[in-house]
């Protein structure tokens, strides 16, 4: 595998993000506004600093909110959302003819998007921090920080796998890529990952059921780990579950891709 061509893809993709600067700025503004809603909601709930609800105190819940800003930038930022359109328009053919691995190509483009979004998220978080002056829970246990980092890597891989699977919908339903993306990535993933509210407001039974899905490992579980809300053995269990999901998604992805390739007829070209 030649790394240099992927480095070139990374650089080109990074520069491309600046081609539509206003779009990018607007997208970031939207992210900040979503944080406003969640921040003030929880700030209102925890207006009494001594209050404990759902196992959170004021410091931990507001750290969770700021964590959403970072993890969304790292895990949820992706260019691979364009794959569905590429397949339905027949533009996939252009990439298939190139000496490049399709999955690695899009993963590299995703990485460049994540790098840029993360840079902006850091700046936004600093500004929001100065404006809102929230209390912040700083994790100092080195073991937990390492597990948090490992979980984030797995979260990036799980999200990539889910996104690609959903984006392959147009192989079978060319006009429905946008709708599938809205349902699975815009609604189900968003809510069940804990990006809108922490999942531990749900009753224990629902939480247990959700643990068998890949969604909590995208955001909720890494943040629970960072906040130290779960035991070390549960953290390790989460790392194992994330790894299993990565393997399941890679296998499923290869299977669906092979089926899709047999179905692909380059309509529109």
């Amino acid at each position, binding site marked *: 595998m030649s790394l240099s061509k992927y480095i070139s893809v990374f650089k080109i993709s990074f520069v491309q993000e600046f081609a539509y600067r206003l779009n990018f700025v607007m997208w970031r503004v939207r992210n900040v506004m979503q944080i406003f809603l969640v921040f003030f*909601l929880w700030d*209102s*709930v925890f207006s009494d600093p001594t209050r404990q609800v759902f196992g959170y105190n004021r410091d931990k819940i507001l750290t969770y909110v700021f964590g959403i800003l970072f993890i969304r930038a790292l895990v949820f930022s992706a260019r691979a959302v364009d794959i569905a359109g590429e397949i339905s328009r027949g533009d996939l053919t252009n990439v298939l003819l190139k000496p490049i691995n399709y999955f690695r190509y899009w993963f590299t483009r995703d990485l460049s998007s994540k790098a840029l979004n993360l840079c902006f998220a850091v700046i936004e978080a600093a500004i929001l921090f100065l404006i809102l002056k929230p209390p912040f829970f700083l994790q100092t246990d080195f073991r937990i920080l390492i597990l948090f980092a490992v979980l984030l890597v797995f979260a990036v891989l799980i999200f990539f796998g889910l996104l690609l699977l959903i984006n392959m919908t147009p192989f079978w339903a060319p006009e*429905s890529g946008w*709708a599938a993306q809205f*349902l699975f990535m815009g609604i189900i993933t968003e*809510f069940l990952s804990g990006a809108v509210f922490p999942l531990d407001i749900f009753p224990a039974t629902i939480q247990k059921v959700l643990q068998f899905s890949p969604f909590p490992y995208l955001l909720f579980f890494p943040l629970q780990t960072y906040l130290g809300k779960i035991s070390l053995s549960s953290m390790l269990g989460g790392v194992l579950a994330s790894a299993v999901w990565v393997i399941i998604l890679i296998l499923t992805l290869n299977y669906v891709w092979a089926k899709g390739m047999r179905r692909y007829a380059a309509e529109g070209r």
Partner: protein
Amino acid sequence: MLKKISRYLKVWWLMSRNSFLGFLTQRFGAVIFLTGKLLRFGFFFIFIVFLLKGTKTLAGFNLNQTIFFFLTFNLIDVVSQFLFREVYRFRPLVVSGGFDLVLTKPISALFRSLMGGADVLDLITIPPLVVAIILAGRTLNPSILHSAYYIVLIFNSLVLATAFHIAVLSLGIITLEIDHTIMIYRDLTNLGRFPVDIYKEPLKGILTYLVPVGIMITLPAKAFIGLVSFKGILVSFALGILAISIALRFWDFALTKYTSASS
């Protein structure tokens, strides 16, 4: 005047029917999209119920009141999306110069751009939402006067929503940017998903008067609960009239900036 209204109603019906036929060509995608919308509603509803079970109150409002705020937000959001879905499709018209064809037709270009394609998916969700509002509203035991306040303030909210959409269209002509502007409008109104009382100053003041999300969404529900005076209602109407006047002037100004590029 009546003749003119009747002509515009006919045109609106024709355009809405065409929009419905377009919807029938993408049934599978539309069903998935509708499922997504219902799921989002369901997730937020469940969240509010579990949250308020744990906290008992939110900014001083109990569970039933918070649900009523949430349903009111959804009603205004869904009705404005149903009426103004065409705004989301406006950009290609301006970018391609196809807007020329709209300008030459013997109907208002603003009417065509704003209401040229009612959304069937949103229409489907309006009746159950109204029923839910009636059921939730009954638990709050409102007086007839407060119910009347609620209804007229909902109309005022739709006037404000119209003003927002006209402003987005106008900005679209000047900057060619619609997609994110309309989504920022949606994000702003989303801040009204919960009563604006949860926000601190100066954000609360901004959301009440400058970007009147509070007047648009929180105020009708507050009036229903009996927390708004007659003076407050008059002020909100004045703001509605002011907003629509500014938006219409902005539209006139934006039209002078249309270059007909690419046509």
